[in-house]
């Protein structure tokens, strides 16, 4: 009886005019919001403080997927541990793989670190390449363009608004990229150590060099033996900093920093990872600013 009553309350709510966009990670929700403005209501399944590889198929995610008009995923197997279950349980035909309501960002950029050989002895490798594509701001142009087209397909009534929304975003974004590139010029050629192989696209963009990772293999927790090896390596390869994402465990980088006096740089990784990283633009403002600190 009570359930029926609650159902009625829910159904009686004013029909939501906004397009329901369900994103697996915060960056695509932010991008959809930039393009669609108030025409979309984008929510993210995960926060920047959660490890996107390890997420539970929580009941709340199933409920959200049920009502979504468009699902935004990174793809490249980043969400393989939970998204298939959520999609199957949702009973929502609009967002199933292959439908217009299913959007994978990784399909629109050039993937790096595509493994030549697939073997789990290499750790958590992804057949389609490194999935952390959001660390290069240039990717948001290609992905944004595709996303605007997809929004127009799913919600044809607002097609023009999405196209002009993207055009305005792209113009702002290109100017921003030039700005960040100018600011980050001193980072070119700088050697760094990273905790997880999460930054390959960022390094590719700014011309930085990764000389070691704290994880012995992608997705394998750093061991003391491996950290000691990295410490010895630091002496010869002279990195300037050790980089970790906000969601990574703090201890491995702290250990290395204590041993080698290397400064630790905690990057937001995605929207919400640090207090200043409130949206896409501030995400890269903060990322570049934090990377430049140890060089001063």
């Amino acid at each position, binding site marked *: 009886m009570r*359930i029926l009553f*609650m*159902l009625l309350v*829910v*159904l009686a709510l004013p029909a939501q005019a906004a397009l329901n966009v369900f994103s697996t990670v915060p960056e695509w929700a932010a991008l959809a919001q930039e393009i669609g403005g108030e025409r979309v209501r984008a929510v993210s399944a*995960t*926060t920047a*403080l*959660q*490890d996107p590889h*390890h997420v*539970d*198929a*929580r*009941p*709340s995610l*199933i*409920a*959200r997927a*049920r*009502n979504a008009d468009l699902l935004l995923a990174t793809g490249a197997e980043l969400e*393989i*541990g*939970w*998204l*298939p*279950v959520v*999609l*199957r*349980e*949702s*009973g*929502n*035909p*609009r*967002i*199933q*793989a*292959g*439908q217009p309501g299913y959007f994978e960002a990784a*399909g*629109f*950029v*050039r*993937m790096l670190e*595509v493994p030549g050989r697939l073997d*789990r002895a290499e*750790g*958590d490798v992804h057949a389609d390449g490194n999935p952390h594509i959001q660390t290069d701001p*240039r990717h948001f*142009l*290609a992905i944004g363009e595709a996303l605007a087209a997809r929004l127009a397909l799913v919600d044809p009534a607002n097609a023009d608004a999405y196209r002009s929304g993207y055009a305005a975003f792209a113009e702002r974004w*290109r100017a921003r*990229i030039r700005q960040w*590139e100018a600011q980050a010029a001193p980072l070119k050629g700088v050697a760094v150590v990273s905790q997880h192989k999460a930054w390959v696209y960022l390094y590719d963009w700014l011309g930085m060099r990764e000389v070691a990772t704290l994880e012995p293999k992608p*997705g*394998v*927790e750093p061991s003391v033996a491996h950290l000691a090896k990295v410490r010895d390596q630091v002496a010869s390869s002279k990195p300037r900093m050790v980089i970790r994402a906000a*969601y990574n*465990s703090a201890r491995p980088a702290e250990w290395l920093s204590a041993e080698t006096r290397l400064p630790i740089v905690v990057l937001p990784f995605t929207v919400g990872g640090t207090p200043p990283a409130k949206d896409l633009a501030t995400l890269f403002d903060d990322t570049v600013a934090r990377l430049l600190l140890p060089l001063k």
Partner: protein
Amino acid sequence: MKNVPLFALAAAGALSAFPASAADADLKALREEIAQMKNAYEQRINALERRLVQAESTSTQAKAAADKATTQTARAGEGKASAFNPEIGLVLQGQAKRMQDVPERVVSGYWPSGHDHGGDRRGVSLEHSELMFSANIDPSFRGVARFAVTGAGEVEVEEASVSTLGLGNGFSVRGGRFASDIGYQNAQHPHEWDFADATLMQKVLFGNEGYRQDGVQVKWLAPTPFMLQFGAELGRGANFPGTDRNKNGSGAGAIFVKTGGDVGAANAWQAGLSFLSTRAADRAAHFEDTGGVEAESFFSGKSRTAIADFVWKWAPNGNASERSLKLQGEVFRRTEKGTWRCDDADAASPTTCTGGAALGDLATRQSGGYASAVFQFMPKWRVGYRHDWLARGSKAFDDATVFGLLDAGNHYFADFKPRRDSVMLDWSNSEFSRLRLQYARDRAMMGVTDNQVTLQYIMSLGAHGAHKF
């Protein structure tokens, strides 16, 4: 395309060096032709260069063009027929168990559910190895098959089901053989369990492997902001507590409702209520007659099971890679009503039941449950504690008739509350491998306090489907 102009230019070079023995007219014609070709190619090269300059005007535009090109070539390479092969996964599981040698191990007071894959064997043993295949069949259907291969070489079809892919309006339908969605742990495969063995509750309700339906399941997800799901199943009902009854139509029906949501970013929960109704015809169990000779008893009647389940998961900020806590519990109540009879287990050894004897009516009501907590205290390492309990419950039958034929000392008649406490420590090198050490103080059988130590491995090869909450 790139090779053509090079070849043409090379040919042109060779021709221009040709001795002047050929007719002048021919030579002139050739030279004109080559000049034209050169012109054409120069124009095209110029055009390409212009385009290149345009493309390089900003780094972003050039990258986008390159990205598009590589994505397209990468996509083209995926068109092999073998790419359509189903996902294949294999779970290898085995254990070494130290426990007492108890001849007819039973849970006192409960009708034996029989059937297991050898998890109750002493010493080193191979538990079952699970082979899984799954793939989308077409845009509307998905198929899953799981085969359990026991250490003794038997193959059992654990699951062979077809489900719809987004039927719409929150509906989904599944058919074939599948693990019933009643309760929480029932639908989990042994490699997903947090402890090395099944709960006592599962053992007495359905047997170690849980309740499987051969039938149809319909689920509906309500359009609510929190999860609210209703489900119904109709099945053959051949599995314990029912039996195969060789009839048309359905032999078992189940309904369930599940709800769940988040509390902040750090907590997620799920709760459910389920109900299973089935019938048994001559469901057999071993008893001893009043003379201590083995006889067989058969129950025929209705069996109804209600289960309430609850799961709560916590992790700091919802990030379970460092620390996390999982609290889980289920309780059940089973009522059975029908008649029973007994007969010789072996024709060569006559009993008080020889020739078949009616035992009259049997009505039982029994309940129990378990509660467990599993804490991940650092990456890779978890500890857990589980408490299993079963109530004595009530059994109504005609004492004079029954005890005139069967020994009152049978474990089924025991005035006893089965209990078990388990602690475990497990280590997962990755999400594909797990080693577990478990200690259990098992008091499920009257008169036996069994201190059990289990060392178990669970290894997953190949494609491994996502787990449910």
